[in-house]
Structures are given as C-alpha cells and as structure tokens.
C-alpha cells in the first residue's frame, strides 16, 4: 500500500510501473489491475484555464486517504493499492490523481478503484483554484458526482 502527496508533476504510467516492479511479492499473484487517472484539462465551465493551484491540509489529507484505502481493503480482497495526488501549481495536461488497485479478480479491482476515487473526491481535503486566461482566479465550489 502506498499513498503519496506529490508537489511535482509525475508520469502516472511510470509511477505505476515503478510501484509494481518494486513490489516483487506481487509477481504472479495478481490477475487484475484497475487504474484511474484524473488529468487537468485546459477548459472548464466554458472558460480556458491556464493553470490550477491545489491546496491541501497536511496531515488530515493523508489521514483521510489512509482511512479510505482501509475501507476498500475491508470491503474487497485487495492485494495492493497505490494512490498519488498532486498539490501545488498544476498545468493543463498534468495528472492530478492516480488510483491503482491490484486484485486476484477483475470485479474487485473495478469496484475498489471506483470506491477509492469517489471517496477521495468527496472526503479528501484538497481544494482547487483555477487561473483563467483572463487572469481571473476562481475556487471550484463542488466536485461533480461520478454517478456511481
């Protein structure tokens, strides 16, 4: 299990590959991996967006993410989990969040990864402020739901 808060841009595919290959005990044991990546877009609510500042609550953010992952482990037979979330200044096309779940069977991987993402969206203390092309700044006020 690995939860990372990350102030620099990261390549999500390299992050998963590195995690998977470093966990030698995983080899041969997992049959399913489900991954979700959230990436910054260059438009939102009809406006061009130049960048984003992502604030968090050091300590509480990690605590809540650990709680969410523990809930997933209680509900599904999960072999391993990797969660990475950016903070700080973010540019369009950079990944914001990565959730990867390794299980024996696919239903569990799909369910657990989606559970973690939805819980993260509603409970992990992160806040996004967009910087628009017009130089105006605006706080996002609410996450859209994932119609789960």
């Amino acid at each position: 299990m690995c939860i990372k808060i990350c102030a620099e841009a990261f390549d999500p595919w390299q992050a998963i590959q590195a995690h998977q290959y470093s966990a030698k005990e995983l080899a041969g044991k997992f049959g399913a991996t489900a991954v979700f990546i959230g990436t910054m877009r260059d438009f939102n609510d009809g406006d061009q967006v130049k960048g984003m500042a992502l604030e968090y609550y050091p300590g509480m953010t990690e605590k809540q993410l650990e709680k969410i992952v523990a809930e997933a482990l209680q509900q599904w037979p999960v072999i391993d989990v990797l969660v990475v979330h950016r903070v700080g200044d973010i540019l369009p096309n950079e990944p914001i969040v990565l959730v990867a779940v390794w299980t024996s069977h696919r239903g569990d991987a799909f369910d657990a990864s989606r559970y973690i993402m939805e819980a993260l969206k509603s409970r992990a203390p992160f806040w996004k402020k967009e910087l628009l092309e017009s130089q105006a700044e605006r706080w996002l006020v609410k996450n859209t739901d994932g119609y789960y």
Partner: protein
Amino acid sequence: MSIKVRYFASLKEALGRSEEHLEFSGLASVGDVWDRANPNKALPDNSLAAVNMDYVELNDPVKDGDEVAFFPPVTGG
C-alpha cells in the same frame, strides 16, 4: 482551554487568516469555536469541520488542545 483553529481555501481567503489560537474556559462545541473566533459572522453553508483531522458535526464537543478546522467542500481528484 486552548484551541488551535485553522481555515483553508476560499474560507481562509475570505477571512484573511489561516490559523489562530483561542483561549477560553468552559465546555464548548465545534460551532461555539467558530462563533468565538468569528463573532457575528455566519459559517458559510456547506462548510465542513474537522477536529484533530477527523470530520465532525458542528454540535460535536471540543476539548483542551484540540485542532479545529473549517473549510469549504473539497474539490480534489
């Protein structure tokens, strides 16, 4: 008792401060902490509150040494 109060994101910007210490005596709820720290100012609708980094309701109690936080709905992920 001594309470550390923290604010985040748009609420922090609206109040113009991120952190403060309150000293007072007697039992109090999370909502009381807001009222003492921000007299005559209502906590914005939909705000969230945490004590010691766990989510709480406004009528939950606080005790000496607690860290109480107020912030807007979260928008991560």
